[in-house]
């Protein structure tokens, strides 16, 4: 591959690669917080 003449040499901090965890799917889904159940029609919500 032709990329021209060298200009300078630099040092770049190492990249941290994503660590594979066999216990999880390769593409993990963000965890959705559980919502409280909707009150039934006519049901009075409990006071907090």
């Amino acid at each position: 591959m032709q990329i021209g003449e060298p200009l300078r040499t630099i040092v770049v901090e190492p990249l941290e690669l994503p660590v594979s965890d066999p216990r999880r799917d390769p593409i993990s889904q963000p965890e959705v917080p559980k919502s409280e159940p909707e009150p039934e029609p006519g049901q009075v919500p409990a006071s907090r």
Partner: protein
Amino acid sequence: MKAPDYVSAIVGYRVWRWEATGLQSLNGEPWFPNRPFVASCRALTLETVVGAEAAHKMNDIPQAKCTCGVYATKGLDHLRETQYWRQGIHGKVNLWGTVVEHELGWRAQCAYPKALFLPRDGLPFSLAAIQSRLKTLIAYRAEIFVADPNGNTSRYGRTIQDMIPQDWTT
């Protein structure tokens, strides 16, 4: 190693061969998922004048006066102009460690795929074959886009990972 000049990886463009086992450099060297590709220097083993002139320590890769290192271009246009992008699948690559900047590209000590652009006409024909081949790419955890015949992708395009069933990735 001396103190880094940059804390973030350099991003370049390159081309890989997409084989049934995964990605390979155009010279056939395999790139493994979750493992940096670390360059080696073949000039060290050459008994030629070029090899002798370029000789340097294995842990000093790449050298400005040698040709070793993982090659990448600064822009996608250069891959198109040289027709390199037709030799496989192209994409963005993270580069780090010692990096030699050239006028049009980079030679790096370490590299890992950042994003992959699949040509539509390069996809297998059957759904089963697509699933099987895509699994080898998804293992790299790089973003995967489908490119148009000119190699372009929509900036806000969806990745393959957004479009395929979740069980394809397991």
